[in-house]
């Protein structure tokens, strides 16, 4: 049997998703007998580029050379998968308002002339991607399911339902009903509602799901007497505005 040839690439990010991928690799060694790793800088000296079936890419390409690397990845891979929220939506690094970058760069690096980085954007901003495995970090069962789907010639399913669904299935108490600033209704599932399961409101870190009703949640927060500034801050964590800023930049 020919093995499935995969590669793992890290752009700028925390490398947490890559570590989860490593956890997956250890837990499912039987699955990995059918897989060959061609290129994975973090744990290997091999850097093969020929006939990659699937490239898993984590992080955001904030440097120009990373954008070039990303284009190479696309050119050499049958499928490209955004591994984790940074690659999928821009993630936490995209919380920074692109308009304030220059000013903040000067504040953090006083006296430095040249900034090497661009605003954090999803990898789909630069190349076409085929699949997303969401999570901050991604979790092992989702990776396992994706890889086993591919090995069995199934089209991997993509999650497009809110965190709330996971909360309901775990029978968590609704934090929004308790008046807390929970982002669950807007946020794409993939974390097994882990924060609400600890009694902590959803931060929205997995990004906004398609067709989310942002207006309704904003109104709920307004009814709870939260300030407009706070509401704007919280909504920003689902990177709803990222597309808008792209249009402005284009």
């Amino acid at each position, binding site marked *: 049997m020919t093995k499935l040839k995969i590669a793992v690439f890290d752009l*700028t990010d925390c490398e947490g998703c890559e570590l989860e991928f490593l956890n997956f690799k250890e837990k499912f060694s039987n699955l990995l007998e059918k897989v060959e790793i061609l290129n994975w800088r973090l*744990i290997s000296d091999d850097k093969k580029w020929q006939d990659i079936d699937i490239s898993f890419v984590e992080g955001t390409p904030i440097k120009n050379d990373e954008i070039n690397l990303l284009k190479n990845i696309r050119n050499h891979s049958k499928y490209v998968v955004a591994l984790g929220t940074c690659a999928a939506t821009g993630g936490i690094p995209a919380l920074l308002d692109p308009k304030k970058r220059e000013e903040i760069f000067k504040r953090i690096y006083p006296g430095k002339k040249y900034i090497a*980085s661009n605003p954090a954007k999803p990898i789909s901003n630069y190349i076409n991607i085929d699949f997303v495995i969401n999570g901050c970090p991604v979790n092992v069962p989702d990776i396992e399911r994706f890889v086993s789907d591919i090995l069995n010639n199934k089209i991997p399913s993509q999650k497009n339902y809110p965190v709330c669904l996971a909360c309901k299935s775990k029978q968590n108490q609704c934090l929004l009903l308790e008046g807390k600033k929970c982002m669950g209704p807007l946020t794409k599932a993939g974390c097994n509602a882990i924060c609400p399961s600890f009694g902590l409101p959803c931060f929205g870190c997995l990004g906004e799901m398609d067709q989310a009703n942002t207006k309704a949640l904003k109104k709920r927060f307004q009814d709870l007497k939260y300030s407009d500034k706070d509401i704007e801050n919280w909504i920003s964590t689902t990177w709803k505005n990222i597309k808008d800023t792209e249009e402005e930049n284009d």
Partner: protein
Amino acid sequence: MTEKYNDYVNRVEGHGVLNINFNKKTAKFEVSEGERLFEGLVLGRNFDEIPFIVSRICGICPTAHYISAIKAMENILNIEPTESTILLRKLMLSAQIIQSHNLHLFFLALPDYLNLKDNENLTEKYPEEFHIALNIKRMADKILEIVGGRSIHPINPVIGGFAKKISENDLANLRFNLENTLSDAEYAVDLFSQLDYPKFSSPTTYLAMTSNDYEIYHGNIKSSDDKIFSPTNYKKKLKEKILEESSAKITYFTGKSIMTGAPARLFINSDKLNLRSRAKLENSRIDYKSNNPFQNNFYQSIEIMHFFEESIKIIDKLLKKKIATNPEPFKIKSGIGASAIEAPRGTLYHSYEIDGNGKVIDADILTPTGQNLSNLESDVQKLLKDIKNLKEVDQKNQVEKLIRAYDPCLTCSVH
């Protein structure tokens, strides 16, 4: 068509490029992460969101950033967490050090010494070693899952305490598993004490937290030339240099290059190691005062064992009393607060200023790797001089081996 991109050094956390000019006999290791501007993206955000955000600086040591931010906020708001809360945080930090050291030792560094290309070969050719690495990793992951909520990017610790109570039963189970895997940690020490480390000596100034114990949470910062300062004073003592060619700021202490992390903690606190780890260190053929940065690998294995013993001690203390971790009540007020803890690679500093509404108006983070880079900068040059008679490819490999021995977290250094 192939686009141009940088060739980053393999098996290192984050992106760095090694440039060697064999004619001029110069070596330069440049950090080439893009500026991530975390100290800017927290501005204007609510104080209680910060631990969550800054943990995303690093997926290798998220717990260290998370707890540092919590501690700094507690300093601003005058919150005194309970003894149980502090012990549980120490347990998490211990597990974080074990987890990070283990990843570095077995996955990134060990292939250098067994002449393997990668960890894939380790699995096949050295199944026993790989098995040990997995056992240690699973132990650390388990502690972080039980106490922190998950093994990467914690959830459960909050400002003033823990969101959810940790059960005595879970802790007793952890203790049982720790006892059972302590022999694996011991095996790791034996393995890393026997590796053939290149001969190299580079005296430097070491910096580590110090108090009555092998401290990772409270305490002042002590240097190997006997200077002591309070963590709240760190900005005055540690100076960051900004370079055009590097996105990491390089940190110096009293104008000198420094080293922090396992070598520094051992240099300054070795007499406070737990009994069995200390015996291992003293009976080893490796001299931990010999200023050889390659030996960091051995020191990290000693620390893995120490923090296994330490975790057992911490759980014993926790189980003696009723565990109280409900978040302490507090009022929001404006102020400035700084904190330090020992992260896997050394002392990590966070400081924040918040306004009367709890919004962050200033932030500063100083990482262990930023400090160690000052030393690595001169060491790559020094090493190249020592090995100038080797073949060019061997020179390059040896310098890369040194870089990996430092266990730099370039991701952290450019936060």
